[in-house]
């Protein structure tokens, strides 16, 4: 794959745009605007993926991020300290350390990129990335793909458990206690006092 001049120019513009919007995320006054800047950064990276002929991933990035950043903006409104971003907002701690660590990470990773020798094995000429990805997803790597799906389902269950206020046996904040077998009786299914002591002595 030999990129044309237009591709190089488009990459330069998109790269500058991705870094600029990524940096603006942390220095805008409104948290909603910050989430839209993050969306722009993701879209620039998705466009770069399309330039790299990974069309499926680039388009998936657009769709996923468009939805994800809308949800993010909603949460931003809920947790916003500074409505409408009318006042200057800078809520940071240990900023100096954070800047130093960020710069160090950038320098070290760039040094790795510049100094190491990576194998030069570009895409074959007749390669169709989307077809090969589809065959991989539903072929050799199906287990990985399905595992990701199951983990997403687990996440949904976990999120509902974490964010629901009431548990099965009452308010989740109080700690759960199953009801008694008869009204006002001992909680069912709990080890009794002496039983607990007994197992304790065994150790």
């Amino acid at each position: 794959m030999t990129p044309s001049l237009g591709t190089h120019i488009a990459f330069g513009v998109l790269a500058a745009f991705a870094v600029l919007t990524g940096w603006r995320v942390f220095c805008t006054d409104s948290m909603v605007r910050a989430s839209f800047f993050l969306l722009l950064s993701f879209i620039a990276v998705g466009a770069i993926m399309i330039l790299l002929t990974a069309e499926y991933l680039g388009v998936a990035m657009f769709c996923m991020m468009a939805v994800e950043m809308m949800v993010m903006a909603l949460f931003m409104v809920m947790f916003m300290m500074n409505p409408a971003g009318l006042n200057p907002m800078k809520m940071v701690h240990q900023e100096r350390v954070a800047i130093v660590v960020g710069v160090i990470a950038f320098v070290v990773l760039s040094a790795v990129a510049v100094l190491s020798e990576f194998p030069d094995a570009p895409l074959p000429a007749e390669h169709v990335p989307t077809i090969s990805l589809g065959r991989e997803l539903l072929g050799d790597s199906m287990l990985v793909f399905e595992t990701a799906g199951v983990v997403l389902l687990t996440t949904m269950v976990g999120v509902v458990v974490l964010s629901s206020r009431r548990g099965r046996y009452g308010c989740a904040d109080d700690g759960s206690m199953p009801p008694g077998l008869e009204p006002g009786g001992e909680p069912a299914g709990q080890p009794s006092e002496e039983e607990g002591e007994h197992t304790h002595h065994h150790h």
Partner: protein
Amino acid sequence: MTLTTLLILAAALIGIGLYGALSQQSFVMLMMGLELMLNGVMLAAVAFWAFSGTGAPEGQLLTIVVMAVMAIEMALGFALVVAVFRAKQADMTEALSELKQ
């Protein structure tokens, strides 16, 4: 557009994200830093796939896995933020100091 420039761009995104994750006080802004870091990781994975993997489809698969990780991180992160806010009325990292020495 070479592998080196793509990796430098990914490094820049990871650096900015690391700065955000370390410096922001609000939980949700901190999570945006994490997302930006994952953005750089995905870009690096696609760059390696395109330039030094002879188009092995596992490279694209890795990006899809990172996307799933990103979705999970965001969903669980927001659920935890909501749960912490319910329990402590806290939406800043400073407000949680129970594990502090």
